[in-house]
């Protein structure tokens, strides 16, 4: 199979369309089972009581906020290096979902902070660097909309996304590098998880569900972006977009 042909936006469009229902279904199943485990099966936490259950949305949202930023920056790098239209379209498609998960990580963090720390917000390294991430997503999106020329908008927001990636390790390691109020990592690649297996299972299922949800939503937005930006190309190749194919 020749995958490189899918780097053409109009060839990618139907492929993405076939993948969205699969990712969406898997996301719905994983989130349903994750919620069942997190809310109904998992026992209480001996230190934090039931407030700890916020972990089942907070950690997946926070992980996705960082992961999606890295993926967005990689697409920006590919776009800048190869001057590929589809790569910039992916950058454009990822930013709003990444921003949403960053907002949710901050909001659910506040909901967790109030009962456990006594404060909605503190200027702690973890919280502050995550807030900066939200501004970075906003910057990437605003820079695009503020430049009329499409190619310049792509390059400017791509550079912005790429430069901002330095914040990701800062967020990740902030709880080690600084003395933060935010608790340390419950799960890491080098040590055994510091939580009960059933809690970990629920959290990982929710994370997997959020990841699959992101794929479905981002591919769906990428299709919108392709239609918005490539509509003139459609004239020569309307068959790639079934919704448009029958017009003439």
């Amino acid at each position: 199979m020749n995958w490189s042909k899918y780097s053409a936006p109009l060839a990618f469009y139907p492929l993405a369309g076939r993948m969205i229902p699969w990712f969406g279904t898997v996301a719905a199943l994983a989130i349903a089972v994750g919620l069942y485990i997190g809310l109904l099966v998992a026992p209480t936490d001996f230190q934090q009581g039931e407030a700890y259950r916020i972990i089942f949305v907070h950690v997946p949202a926070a992980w996705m906020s960082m992961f999606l930023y890295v993926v967005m920056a990689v697409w920006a790098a590919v776009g800048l290096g190869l001057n590929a239209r589809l790569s910039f379209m992916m950058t454009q498609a990822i930013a709003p979902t990444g921003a949403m998960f960053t907002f949710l990580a901050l909001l659910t963090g506040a909901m967790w902070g109030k009962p456990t720390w006594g404060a909605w917000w503190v200027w702690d390294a973890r919280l502050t660097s995550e807030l900066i991430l939200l501004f970075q997503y906003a910057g990437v999106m605003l820079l695009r909309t503020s430049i009329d020329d499409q190619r310049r908008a792509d390059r400017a927001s791509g550079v912005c996304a790429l430069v901002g990636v330095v914040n990701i390790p800062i967020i990740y390691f902030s709880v080690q590098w600084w003395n933060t109020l935010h608790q340390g990592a419950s799960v890491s690649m080098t040590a055994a998880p510091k939580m009960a297996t059933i809690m970990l299972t629920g959290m990982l299922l929710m994370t997997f569900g959020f990841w699959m949800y992101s794929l479905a939503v981002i591919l769906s937005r990428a299709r919108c972006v392709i239609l918005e930006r490539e509509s003139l190309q459609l004239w020569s190749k309307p068959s790639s977009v079934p919704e448009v194919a029958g017009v003439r």
Partner: protein
Amino acid sequence: MYWGSLSEFLEMGGYGLYVWTSFIITGLCMVWEILALWRRRAAAIAESRGIVRDIG
């Protein structure tokens, strides 16, 4: 099943407000994103059909 009764489940040991706000707003944001994409898609398709019709 961990809970003894529905009211116990909703109260979340006194943290109900924080826990349910977190879950409900997360859910609402995700549903809103899907609906917004649905509308954006319908608008983009309508626009493309218009362009293809006019040029073709």
